[in-house]
C-alpha cells in the first residue's frame, strides 16, 4: 500500500481578519448613537433632503397624547438650564441627582417631581417619564421655561420638532403657539425621506 501523504488543509485567516478589523473600525467611527427616546414616534415622510443638524440642537418630542419631552444635546447647556430652572421653581437637587439628570437624555418631568424622579432606579425612569411629560398648560408652562433658559445661554441653538404623524393637529398647534410666544419663529420639523416625484 502506498503511503498516503497527509496534507493538513490550513486556510490562512489573517487576510480575512484584516478585512473584518477594517470594517469594524469603519462602523465604529461612523456610528452615532441616537439618544434613546422615551416614546416611540413615527415621523411623517417628506421630500426634503436637508439633514438634521448635528450639533447645538434642542429636540422637542411630542407623543400621541401631546406630552412633551425635550432633549438638549450640549451637556453644559443642559446643566445650566437645569440650574436656572431649579432656581426659578425652588427645587434643590443634590450632586447625585444632578449626575443622574445628565445621564438621562430627555427631560420630561415637571420640576416639582424632578428630585423624586431622579432618585428612582434608572430602569424605572423611562416608564415614569412616559407618564409625565413637561407641563405646558397656560398656568404652569415649564416647557416655555426650558426653551427660554436654553436660548438665554445660547441664542444660536436650533430647535427641531419631532412628532408622530397621527398626532391630532391641536396638540401640535399648542406647541407651535408656545414657540411663537417666545419668538422662536424658525424651527425645523423632523421628517423621514420619501423620494421626490419625477421631474421636480
Amino acid at each position: 500500500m502506498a503511503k498516503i501523504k497527509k496534507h493538513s488543509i490550513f486556510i490562512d485567516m489573517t487576510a480575512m481578519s484584516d478585512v473584518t478589523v477594517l470594517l469594524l473600525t469603519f462602523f465604529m467611527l461612523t456610528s452615532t448613537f441616537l439618544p434613546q427616546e422615551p416614546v416611540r414616534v413615527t415621523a411623517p415622510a417628506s421630500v426634503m433632503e436637508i439633514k438634521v443638524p448635528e450639533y447645538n440642537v434642542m429636540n422637542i418630542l411630542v407623543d400621541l397624547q401631546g406630552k412633551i419631552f425635550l432633549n438638549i444635546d450640549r451637556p453644559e447647556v443642559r446643566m445650566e438650564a437645569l440650574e436656572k430652572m431649579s432656581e426659578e421653581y425652588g427645587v434643590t437637587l443634590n450632586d447625585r441627582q444632578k449626575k443622574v439628570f445628565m445621564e438621562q437624555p430627555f427631560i420630561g418631568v415637571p420640576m416639582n417631581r424632578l428630585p423624586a424622579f431622579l432618585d428612582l432606579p434608572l430602569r424605572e425612569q423611562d416608564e415614569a417619564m412616559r407618564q409625565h411629560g413637561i407641563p405646558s398648560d397656560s398656568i404652569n408652562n415649564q416647557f416655555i421655561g426650558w426653551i427660554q433658559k436654553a436660548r438665554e445661554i445660547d441664542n444660536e441653538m436650533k430647535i427641531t420638532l419631532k412628532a408622530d404623524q397621527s398626532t391630532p393637529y391641536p396638540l401640535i398647534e399648542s406647541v407651535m403657539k408656545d414657540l411663537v410666544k417666545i419668538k422662536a419663529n424658525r424651527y425645523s420639523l423632523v421628517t423621514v425621506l420619501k423620494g421626490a416625484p419625477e421631474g421636480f
Partner: protein
Amino acid sequence: MANIDTGGDEVKKGKPKQETLRVDFTPMVDMNMLLITFFMLVTTLSKPQVMDIAMPSDQKIEDALAPKVKESRAITLLLGEDDKVYYYLGKLDESAYSDYTVLKETTYSSNTSNEGLRSILLERNAEAVNQMRDLKLERAEKGNRMSEEEFNERSREIKGDVDALTVIIKPMANSNYKNLVDALDEMQICSVGKYAIVDVTEGDLFLVENYKAQGAYSSVK
C-alpha cells in the same frame, strides 16, 4: 503569514527539524464578524431629514410693512378629517359664503393626472414650476459653475414673484400632523414660495359645514 518559523534549533542527528508555529485566526474573524454585525444593527445609517419652517410672529405689523399678496393668486387650503382637503380660491365676499359650491374638496393624492392637491397647485402655479424646472436643468448642465448661492437667489426670485401662487394653509382641529407636513411638502414640490400656516376662522368652519350639508345651512339662514 500567520506562521512563525522557529527554525531547527536542536540539531542533533542528521537533518535539522523544521517546525512552524501557526496561529489560527479563525476565532478572531468570528469575533470580528459578530462585532461588525452588532455595529451594523445599532447604527442609524439614514439620518432623519428636517423641514425648515418659519412661523409668522404673533405681533401686529404695520400695514405698510405687511407683505403684499394678490388676492386673485391666493388659494386657501382647509385641512380636514380623514385626509380630506377643502380649498377655495381668492378672497371670499360676504355673498360667497352662502354658496356652498365655492368650496371644493380634494385629497393629498400625488397623482398628477387626477384632481389631487398636487395637480391643482401645479396647474395654478404653472409658470413658477416651469421656471424652476428650467433653472434646475440649467444647473444640471452647468454643473459646478453655478454656485449654491446663485441657485438659491434665483429660485427665491422665481418663487417670490408677485404673480406667483400664494397658499394659505389652515389646518382644522380634526386634521393631524401628517396632513400638515403633507401640505407643506406639496409647497416644496410645486415650487410655492409664499405660504403660511394660519388659524382657521369661523367663516371657514361655516363653509366646510355648509359644504358637507350641501348648502342646507345657508338656506336656513
